[in-house]
């Protein structure tokens, strides 16, 4: 009796076909969404990109400063600032994240390992605005006592390093854990010292996974808005020293979007497009690098 109802139900609900549709539609929608966003960005940025309103695309790179209400739309300083902040953060986060991964995977005693891992995971879960608030009220005044005004590229780099460190640490640890145990055992049998095994054998073996994590971290650093907005000072200028206040592209959109009209508004969509282009180049680079590594 029970059997019969089940088969009848199967006929009423062709669940496999239904599943295909139910999973396929959201998957397609997710892909279409990216396309829609790009189309929307281009559509909104179009008035200033075509040069009809007296600005050409080149002006975004040639103009001296960013004074949209005075029709100066120089974005290059913000591009440099974004790159400097993201790369600076990587200089700190990659070695430290890798160290965290190696420590927790191979060196830490068992009881520390559990505690350490959960702390790293917790760090990954802190909302960016909390980092920003902490940076604004603690870190910036601290740097300010040493090198006023405090709100600076350095503050942005430190905050971003803290935010991306768990990304690097967690992905690196997963990549190291995925290497075959025979690598470690083989290296140990050859009589290699521990640090030679870790740095000379296991890290190179896990490099694809580690690189993937680093690129994920760069993308997060480039896209981070709120925390950077709160600590970086937001003055539009090409960073000449670590203590210069800077404004990154994302902060520019967040600061001015709600207040912008006409050309000003369109030019903010251009900074959105620029940001997407930077991330796209990054993804392409990552793809190439991982492919060449697979062969080499």
């Amino acid at each position, binding site marked *: 009796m029970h059997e019969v109802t089940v088969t009848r139900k199967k006929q009423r609900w062709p669940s496999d076909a239904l599943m295909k549709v139910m999973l396929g539609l959201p998957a397609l929608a997710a892909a279409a969404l990216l396309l829609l966003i790009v189309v929307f960005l281009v559509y909104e940025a179009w008035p200033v990109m075509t040069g009809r309103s007296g600005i050409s695309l080149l002006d975004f790179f040639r103009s001296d400063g960013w004074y949209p209400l005075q029709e100066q739309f120089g974005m290059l300083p913000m591009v440099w600032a974004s790159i400097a902040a993201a790369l600076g953060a990587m200089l700190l986060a990659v070695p430290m994240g890798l160290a965290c991964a190696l420590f927790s995977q191979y060196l830490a005693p068992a009881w520390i390992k559990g505690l350490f891992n959960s702390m790293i995971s917790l760090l990954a879960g802190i909302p960016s605005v909390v980092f920003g608030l902490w940076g604004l009220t603690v870190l*910036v005044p601290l740097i300010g006592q040493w090198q*006023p*005004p*405090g709100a600076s590229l350095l503050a942005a780099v430190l905050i971003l390093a803290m935010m991306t460190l768990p990304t690097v640490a967690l992905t690196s640890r997963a990549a190291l854990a995925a290497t075959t145990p025979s690598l470690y055992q083989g290296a140990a049998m050859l009589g290699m010292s521990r640090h030679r095994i870790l740095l000379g054998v296991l890290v190179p073996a896990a490099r694809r996974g580690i690189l993937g994590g680093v690129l994920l971290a760069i993308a997060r650093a480039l896209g981070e808005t709120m925390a950077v907005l709160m600590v970086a000072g937001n*003055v539009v200028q090409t960073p000449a020293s670590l203590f210069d206040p800077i404004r990154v592209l994302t902060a520019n959109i967040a600061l001015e979007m709600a*207040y*912008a009209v006409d050309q000003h508004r369109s030019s903010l969509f251009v900074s959105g497009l620029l940001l997407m282009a930077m991330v796209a180049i990054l993804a392409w680079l990552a793809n190439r690098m991982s492919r060449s590594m697979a062969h080499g």
Partner: protein
Amino acid sequence: MLDFCLRRLAILILSSGLVFAVQAESPRLTITGSSTVAPVISDIGKAFEQTNPGTRIDVQTGGSSRGIADAREGRADIGMVSRALNDNENDLAAYPFAMDGISIITHASNPVNALSRENTIAVFTGKITNWKALGGPDRPITVVNKAEGRSTLELFLAFFQLKNSDIRAQVVIGDNQQGIKTVAGNPGAIGYVSIGTAEFEAEYGTPIKLLPMAGIAPTTAHVADGSYPLSRQLNLVTAGPAGGLAAEFIAYARSASVNALIGEHFFVALSSAK
């Protein structure tokens, strides 16, 4: 299992449809605009909801420019604008309901107690870069400016007859709170924010100091009697003359019954000014 899921889904969809139906029935007012005006209008909105059960007042910030754009294009019923309307905004109807002043603020530990108009301009344009030149300690000045598009910035620039590109800022901020936190955390900083917010924060022990403008102390009392020079109207704007619920709300916001509420935010109700 799947059957059960689908049935639950159906219930969910049905019930959310009901929720929408209920929401559509209650009269609703969307108000967007200036971040200076939003907190007080939000409070007035809550009071209005209580005296008019069933109504919903939805307040969103985004700056005066957004208030004007939203009111014009019908995305909001009422726009909040923290300045008088410009000549090219005559198509909108403006209903002033309160006054606010802008004050220059420094860190509380800064011994400089007043700045002349010339010195203020020199500081903000980067001609004076150390407090020593103004009789203070040997400490570099950190100029805190507002991001482009904010009405506080427009008012400040117009008052000192400056262009934004003249200003040599070390920090650019978004809203008043971020400005106050930045100045409170930096002994060499100078910035400008709404008097209402600054007076409130100073009273609650935030280490900031309000500097007088042209010899007149920045207090809400001086804004009220009209003697403080750098002050502004807070406006509610609508596309064309207000009607219906919007008109009721505007009348309520301009009535004497909300004077206390406006005072709590350190603004000056227009019915009590002058």
